[in-house]
């Protein structure tokens, strides 16, 4: 889960990483002092807020309130700004980039650093980015920090600060189970201090069981996404009008691909995952119904998720709420015979193959 900038900075401060002084408010009236000249920054979980007008300077409480008024409620690339961070303005001498992330390809934690700070790291030419892998059996060692400091062009006391910061950021990533911790820009101030200008941290949601504190954090989710999250269901809203329920991300995506061939457009991607519980299937169906698709396509290949479990959940959902929307079900695999029997007279349109199901759903959606 992504943390808001102010949460990420709180976390970094806990690990001894210098961050500007500041506080977060949800209404302009809450600003009753400022620690000198400040920036007022929209707290949204999406990049590009600067260009969208979500960051404004202020030199007085008055100006800060004005800036907050302008920014609060602002829509930034689809996200509504509910809070702003009022933060000490630092005198920038130099901006560099520092990011620590989990790298699939090398199966390790990876540090990225560049002298080109303040811009999207993907747009920085590759040869200007230092990429240093942390060997999992070796972990962070001081020589890594020295390489990073050198790569971003720091020397002397700034290099020493960078090395320490680098170590602490790696420690944060490991101990907090972060998938990403990024400081961009990492600012070298006119006074020679190295301090986090911005902060992005994403916590591995699979590790929340050992980090109770994040479980209570709100995420920036739609009501339906919120429900899906509670049900541990992967739920993504898309542009089309077909609600796709399948088990397994790969199979769900393959179902989307198949729909596409018949000009069907998915409106919801709902991956049930592996479940033995008819209740979960029922809740997933009800959730799907709330998303209001024109047709629902159920595509199950039973393994851990047995076909009769799915059929039972489906029937329960239809019993609880009379569904107007046509349901096309293609259910295959473990206990498929039972499932077929159970659904025989339930008003579900059966399909035997994936292509047939996709074609039926697409036709229905274009009707």
């Amino acid at each position, binding site marked *: 889960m992504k943390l808001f900038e102010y949460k990420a900075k709180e976390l970094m401060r806990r690990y001894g990483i210098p961050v500007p002084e500041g506080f977060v408010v949800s209404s302009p009236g809450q600003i009753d002092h400022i620690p000198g000249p400040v920036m007022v920054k929209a707290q949204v979980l999406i990049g590009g807020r600067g260009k969208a007008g979500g960051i404004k300077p202020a030199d007085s409480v008055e100006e800060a309130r004005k800036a907050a008024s302008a920014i609060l409620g602002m829509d930034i690339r689809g996200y509504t700004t509910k809070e702003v961070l009022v933060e000490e303005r630092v005198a920038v001498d130099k901006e560099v980039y520092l990011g620590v992330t*989990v790298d*699939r390809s090398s199966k390790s934690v990876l540090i990225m650093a560049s002298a080109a700070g303040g811009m999207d790291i993907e747009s920085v030419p590759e040869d200007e980015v230092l990429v240093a892998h942390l060997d*999992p*059996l070796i972990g962070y060692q001081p020589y890594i920090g020295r390489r990073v400091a050198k790569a971003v062009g720091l020397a002397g006391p700034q290099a020493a600060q960078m090395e320490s910061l680098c170590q602490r950021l790696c420690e944060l990533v490991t101990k907090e189970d972060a998938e990403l911790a990024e400081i961009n820009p990492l600012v070298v101030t006119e006074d020679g201090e190295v301090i986090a200008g911005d902060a992005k941290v994403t916590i591995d949601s699979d590790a929340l069981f050992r980090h109770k504190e994040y479980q209570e954090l709100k995420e920036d989710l739609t009501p339906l996404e919120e429900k899906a999250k509670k049900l541990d269901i992967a739920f993504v809203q898309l542009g089309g009008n077909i609600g796709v329920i399948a088990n397994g991300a*790969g199979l769900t*995506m393959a179902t989307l691909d198949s729909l596409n061939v018949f000009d069907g457009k998915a409106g919801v991607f709902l991956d049930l995952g*592996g479940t033995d519980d008819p209740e979960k299937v029922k809740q997933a169906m009800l959730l799907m119904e709330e998303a209001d698709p024109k047709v629902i396509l159920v595509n199950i*290949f039973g*393994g851990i*998720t047995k076909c009769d479990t799915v059929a039972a959940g489906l029937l329960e959902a239809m019993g609880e709420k009379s569904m107007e929307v046509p349901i096309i079900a293609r259910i295959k695999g473990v206990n498929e015979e039972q499932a077929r029997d159970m659904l025989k007279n339930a008003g579900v349109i059966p399909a035997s193959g994936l292509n047939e199901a996709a074609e039926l759903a697409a036709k229905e959606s274009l009707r």
Partner: protein
Amino acid sequence: MTVIVDEITKLVVQGITGYQGTYHSKAMMDFGTDVVAGVTPGKGGHEVHGVPVFDTVEEAVERTGANASCVFVPAPFTKGAVLEAIDAGVATVVAVTEHVPVHDAIYFVAVAKAKGVVLIGPNCPGLASPGLAKIGILPNKIFRRGDVGVVSRSGTLTYEIVNAMTEAGLGQSTCVGIGGDRVPGMGFVDALKLFQEDDGTKRIVLVGEIGGTAEEEAAEFIAESITKPVVAYVAGRTAPPGKRMGHAGAIIARGRGTAASKIKALEAAGVRVAPLPTDVPGLVRA
């Protein structure tokens, strides 16, 4: 031999007394796997389907000669379970458990590699060699003995494709579900290497997904080292970019990781890429 799982595999099931462990131990035995032991701390002395349960993997290995393990313990305990299996000296570990913290996976994947242990997973369906044995949770009924090696990042999508192949009369030598986790033990390249060396495998099917660069790396390896014909399917052509579709990653870095980039790389390596899963059997046969 048929890629890892063969007649001499003696399997210990970690977490055998849990619901999944018990259910799938039976399914594995039905498939032909020699399940020699189970492990559940505190349940030593019990039996599950006639299989003796021990408190530790070390004991299970000492007493039964187990040389492979299948891990069904809950995610918070998976790291300890995998390390226990490695420390006890088994040669192969299949970790079925999903939702394992990625930093745990990074660590035990590295340890397995350092110790020369073949690790598949976490969050994987495991592998099956029809007619011989399987380790994991793949459905028994979909397989048929044959000469196609299947490797896949997906679970149910693999079953879909294997089932379609079996229905089309195309049997499998071994099917490996390496799982869709961010940091898996065995990767495409490791599996491809084994298939290339395996006399029982004549053709290869690779099932990929969007996200990461595993398919691109596989394509590179295929171009260099694989002489057997390869057919692929990549799920997610129509997934919108930037959205994270379940475990399939949204981290699409520098243009790599999209379905287009994967398909292009695979085709450039001489792989025939099926537009839909249902097209796979036809391409394999062609």
